[in-house]
């Protein structure tokens, strides 16, 4: 079950992510040309406020977006009782947010 | 047997969910919100009946040079002076309110002019362009909107319930209720009600070619006949000249190809490809429905037919693209079913369309039997011998509303009648009717469908577009034989649950009963008026002494027909309400 707020959150986060995904893919294609290495990645990102903001926003948006998306799939596949759905959505969203936040911290700090 | 009978009570019981039934529900509920209103229908609410199939539109005089008087005169002249004048007047007068009700309260939206005012189109037989419409799907708009309103109200719905019999009270003086079968569960239900509306919508489906929806088989009139109630104008069956002909084994056969095709310049050709309409009328294909129907029927009898036994309509000479554009819906419909209307030839036949005759009632929809009301195509009188295109749906919506108001009023007013309470039914009558409905289960063998085909052929050949005394007598004899054959025909399974073939059997029974009435009334009319044409009496008869036929069944089941003089209460033949039209134009009533 998706209501107005979840719908809006999902669509807005998608809109936010669209340029970020394009940017991310572009960087990947560029970066991967010389083979990926931790040093290479970290030299780009470490201490960069800009990349911190970029990936921070990405992680926040994807946490919201994917949580709601997976919620819909679970509901429609398993017919899960609505009561379980909210905690589930929160768990997925927070989980992604924390894991993602940790990753961003790792490469930026 | 009685343990199989469920019992139920309501205040107002409405049978049929066409324009008449649905309007009655809304009006009854509004007039007396405290009363329980129940609507019972043979199919699903809003999805059966003919109102939904209305294509052309809805006649109503909305000023700008038109007037209720003019609409009324067109109705009387179209009906060849046979209409019940007070009913025709009320029809024309109330349509003006009803159309605003449909738009402003029910939510219909009819086609507009670019300036936002209502578009009204021309329809055959009328002296003014007064037909309000929604494209060529007017009925869908009307019924869908009415259906939504009814679904949203606290109305009791009995869908897939077939009415089997009207049941009188113990004293026999009033109606007590109606016996149904719940088709889904196969259970008999007797519903008591203070007032009952018959809105089952006539529907002459006993002809080989017919237009009405598949659920219609004149059950309502057959039930009324069995109660000894009087039916008028029953010989008046309207044929539409161009029904689709796709062969005997397709349900598409008989469905209407719209009138506008001829109006736009379509040609009618016989089996050899010869245009024949000018042999019959100066106007050629553009002649009126009855003339074209008779011409085609005549050609068919002469054997000048197409492979399936009809004639062709041909539009190609007007340019296939232009036809496809102007008649988009029709062309698509034909294409879906495998016919090329825009460029090729399509086989057509005259097809039974509408029954002008019906149960006698007063302009307030009351019948002879206290507590029983009738509206829509089941009610006789308003159209006389012919119905104007566009007056059918006006009639059902106008009188459905009237019935709702009157039924509620008759219950709540503590007047001279006793309709404010439920009446005990004649239990013996219920038992008889249940036994009657169960008859086919007591027998073995036979094929209901083959009998139905026999009936449709018989009616087409002997009681059809062109009639003679001899033919009608043959028809009556054939009907008697069919009745006997039906009585011997059983059903292969005794499962009553949603047994369509059982219902086919009962449909056939109603149709045979009503066919007999049509044939008998036709035999009694020794002239040719409107839709009724006697080759042995081609004259229309003297207008001043016009009569209408009344058919009744006595207690032993014997049918008798009599004549009654038409009362010219508003206008007499030779007169008109339109003299000095400009001065006496009456503004449409508010």
């Amino acid at each position, binding site marked *: 079950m998706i209501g*107005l707020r979840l719908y809006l959150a999902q669509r807005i986060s998608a809109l936010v992510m669209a340029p970020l995904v394009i940017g991310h893919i572009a960087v990947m294609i560029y970066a991967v040309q010389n083979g990926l290495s931790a040093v290479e990645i970290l030299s780009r990102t470490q201490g960069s406020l800009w990349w911190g903001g970029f990936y921070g926003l990405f992680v926040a948006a994807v946490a919201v977006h994917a949580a709601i998306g997976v919620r819909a799939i679970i509901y429609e596949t398993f017919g899960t009782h609505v009561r379980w759905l909210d905690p589930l959505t929160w768990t997925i969203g927070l989980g992604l947010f924390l894991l993602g936040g940790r990753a961003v911290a790792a490469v930026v700090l | 047997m009685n343990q199989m009978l469920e019992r139920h009570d309501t205040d107002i019981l409405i049978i049929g969910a066409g324009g008449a039934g649905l309007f009655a529900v809304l009006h009854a509920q509004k007039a007396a919100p405290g009363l329980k209103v129940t609507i019972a229908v043979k199919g699903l609410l809003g999805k059966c009946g003919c109102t939904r199939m209305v294509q052309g539109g809805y006649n109503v005089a909305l000023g700008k040079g038109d007037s209720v008087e003019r609409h009324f005169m067109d109705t009387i002249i179209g009906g060849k002076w046979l209409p019940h004048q007070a009913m025709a007047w009320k029809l024309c007068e109330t349509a003006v309110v009803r159309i605003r009700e449909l738009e402003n309260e029910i939510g219909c939206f009819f086609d507009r002019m670019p300036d936002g005012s209502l578009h009204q189109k021309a329809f055959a037989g009328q002296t003014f362009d007064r037909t309000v419409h929604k494209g060529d799907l007017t009925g869908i708009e009307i019924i869908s909107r009415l259906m939504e309103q009814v679904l949203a109200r606290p109305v009791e719905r009995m869908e897939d319930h077939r009415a089997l019999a009207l049941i009188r009270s113990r004293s026999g003086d009033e109606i007590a209720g109606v016996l149904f079968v719940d088709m889904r569960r196969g259970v008999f239900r007797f519903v008591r009600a203070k007032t009952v509306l018959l809105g089952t919508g006539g529907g002459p489906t006993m002809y080989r070619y017919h237009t009405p929806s598949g659920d219609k088989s004149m059950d309502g009139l057959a039930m009324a006949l069995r109660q000894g109630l009087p039916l008028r104008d029953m010989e008046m069956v309207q044929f539409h000249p161009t029904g689709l002909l796709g062969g005997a084994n397709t*349900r598409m056969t008989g469905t209407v190809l719209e009138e506008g095709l001829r109006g736009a310049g379509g040609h009618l050709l016989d089996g050899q490809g010869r245009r024949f309409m000018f042999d019959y009328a100066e106007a050629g294909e553009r002649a009126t429905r009855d003339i074209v129907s008779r011409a085609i029927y005549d050609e068919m009898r002469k054997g000048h037919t197409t492979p399936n036994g009809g004639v062709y309509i041909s539009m190609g000479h007007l340019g296939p693209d232009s036809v496809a554009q102007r008649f988009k819906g029709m062309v698509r419909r034909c294409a879906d079913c495998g016919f090329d209307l825009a460029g090729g030839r399509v086989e057509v036949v005259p097809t039974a369309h509408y029954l002008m005759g019906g149960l006698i009632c007063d302009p307030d929809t009351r019948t002879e039997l206290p507590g029983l009301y009738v509206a829509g195509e089941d009610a006789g009188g308003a159209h006389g011998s012919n119905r104007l295109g566009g007056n059918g749906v006006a009639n059902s919506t106008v009188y459905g509303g009237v019935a709702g108001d009157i039924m509620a009023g008759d219950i709540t007013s503590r007047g001279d009648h006793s309709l404010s309470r439920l009446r005990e039914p004649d239990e013996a009558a219920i038992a008889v009717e249940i036994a009657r409905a169960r008859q086919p289960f007591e027998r073995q063998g036979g094929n209901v469908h083959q009998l139905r085909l026999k009936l449709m052929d018989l009616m087409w050949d002997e009681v059809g577009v062109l009639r003679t005394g001899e033919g009608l007598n043959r028809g009556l004899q054939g009907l008697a034989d069919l009745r006997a054959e039906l009585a011997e025909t059983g059903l292969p399974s005794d*499962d009553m649950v949603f047994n369509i073939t059982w219902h086919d059997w009962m449909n056939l029974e109603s149709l045979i009963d009503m066919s007999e009435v049509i044939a008998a009334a036709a035999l009694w009319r020794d002239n040719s008026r409107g839709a009724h044409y006697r080759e042995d009496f081609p004259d229309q008869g003297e207008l001043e002494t016009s009569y209408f036929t009344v058919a009744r069944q006595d207690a032993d089941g014997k049918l008798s027909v009599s004549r009654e003089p038409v009362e010219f209460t508003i206008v007499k033949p030779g007169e008109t309400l339109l003299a000095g039209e400009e001065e006496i134009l009456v503004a449409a009533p508010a």
Partner: protein
Amino acid sequence: MSKQRETELYRPGETLAVKVWRGNANGGGFHAYTVPSQESQTVLDVVTWIQQNAEPTLTYRFACRVGMCGSCAMMVNGEPRWTCRTHVKKVIGDKPLEIAPLRNLPVIKDLAADMAEFFDKWTAARGQFQPSQSRDDAMAAISPDEPRRAAANAAIECINCAVCYAACDTVAANPGYLGPAALNRAWTLQSDVRDDAFAERLDAVSAGGGCFNCHSHQSCMTYCPNELNPTASIAGLKRLSAFSYLTGGKSR
């Protein structure tokens, strides 16, 4: 299917292999029949032939025979269709023609589905006009070109056949979802300037089972026999509700 295959497989005068689902709410299965094939023959005619000549207790629905009443919809070879307007040659294949009751609705018996929930949802979506005027008022002057009216007109010719409802996977997966037909009707009403329940209807279509459950699968518009586009109508509702929420109109 290609025209060539069509002419190859469609042989009037010979016979047609057909499988029809028979059963009730407790279950059922397909039964095989052989039906004479003819020049003019719709899927409804096939079903009718079986009932009239082979299986008298076969249950199905139809009324108008011409695509106006929306009673005859069934699954034909797995696709929802109006059977009275589907010529056999359009659906014929090398396997038997397979006819089953409409998907996503409970079955009553054989090919007759129970449409109650379909109409309940129609009502729940507030799919009925709320008058702002009465029969005593003049009819509103509304030009057909006025944008809102044009939007309503584009979606109004629905025959409530439930073909879209049967085609929609979201309906299948999410029983609370109001479905394309009801929302399509709600959209025409939101586009009707004469209607007086705009705010209430907006609440109704954005609540629990409302328009936001639609994933724009577009099966509804693909299968609608009247070529309507419920997807676009539902998108319209999503925009209306979202906009109204963002501008502080209402929340839910």
